[in-house]
């Protein structure tokens, strides 16, 4: 599990059908693990990029997950539009698996560790996390961090982490948190339309 339970020495609560505080990102992290090249995860050979086949595998895994959601839906009517939708998502993920992006931009684990914590006593009733929308104090062990942006925007650590691992910007003001990595020029085919593009 994530750092939250470890940090506070608590067991994750059985959650039954209660709403979860945030989306299930297990798939996301498993996926990211293979293609994350930030900080200490940087490969020995600095020119080495994640294997395109690993990036592809990540997309393919998600496609498989969606495919499972389709068939687990029980009733499959010919006119089931959500089933149709998932079908198209799967198709576009498979497309991305065939044309993976060269590298994942994002902050390192070290960067996340040194983010400024906001102690519980400084949190107010009316302060909430902009990502999950929940009041920080609704959580009995809030783990809140401040980003080094102009607005010093605060988030649940667990909510902001996945975002800045992929996109090193503050979600509120879009301020860049770290310098952009230099990425090799994209492959010449300008067929941007193929990427994830069943939907705009």
């Amino acid at each position, binding site marked *: 599990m994530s750092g939250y339970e470890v940090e506070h020495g608590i067991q994750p609560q059985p959650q039954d059908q209660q*709403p979860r505080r945030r989306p299930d990102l297990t798939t996301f992290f498993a996926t990211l693990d293979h293609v994350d090249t930030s900080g200490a995860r940087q490969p020995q050979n600095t020119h080495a990029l994640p294997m395109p086949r690993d990036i592809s595998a990540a997309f393919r895994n998600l496609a498989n*997950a969606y495919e499972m959601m389709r068939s687990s839906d029980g009733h499959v009517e010919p006119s089931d539009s959500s089933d149709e939708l998932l079908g198209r998502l799967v198709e576009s993920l498979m497309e991305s698996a065939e044309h993976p992006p060269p590298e994942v931009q994002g902050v390192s684990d070290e960067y996340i560790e040194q983010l400024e914590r906001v102690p519980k006593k400084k949190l107010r009733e009316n302060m909430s996390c902009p*990502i999950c*929308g929940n009041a920080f104090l609704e959580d009995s062990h809030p783990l809140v961090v401040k980003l080094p942006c102009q607005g010093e925007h605060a988030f649940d650590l667990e909510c902001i982490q996945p975002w800045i691992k992929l996109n090193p910007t503050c979600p509120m003001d879009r301020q860049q948190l770290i310098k952009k990595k230099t990425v090799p020029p994209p492959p010449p085919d300008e067929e941007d339309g193929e990427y994830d593009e069943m939907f705009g």
Partner: protein
Amino acid sequence: MAAPLPKRIIKETERLQNEPVPGISALPHDDNARYFDVMVEGPGGSCYEGGVFNLELFLPDDYPMTAPKIRFLTRIYHPNIDRLGRICLDVLKNNWSPALQIRTILLSIQALLGAPNPEDPLNEAVAKQWKENQAEAIKTAREWTALYATAKK
């Protein structure tokens, strides 16, 4: 069977019902709370005025880390919307942020109807027509709106 919904999705859905945005509605499916039937009215004064456009919206597993998936079901003549209803809108792509919400995205889409941008086209043919003969393009957009986007009672 299905995993419980994150609170954020529940809150957003409640707010969409309780404080609806004028000219916009989004209703989740009974059997899939991540899949919404969306209706957007063409903005007044635009060539889509009087039209009621249906869209489908899907919240992926990792929403709000990734943007909602959304597309037009109703046919529309617009330089930034292609034949399949896919939408070219920065906030659905590189400019997505988890601080954005379903309602902000739908407002952006409604604004896009009021301000077609042929310089950033998704539909090359429509964008070309828009640049070469705007009056004709706007006339076609009005005709399509009357033909495909009139509300079914």
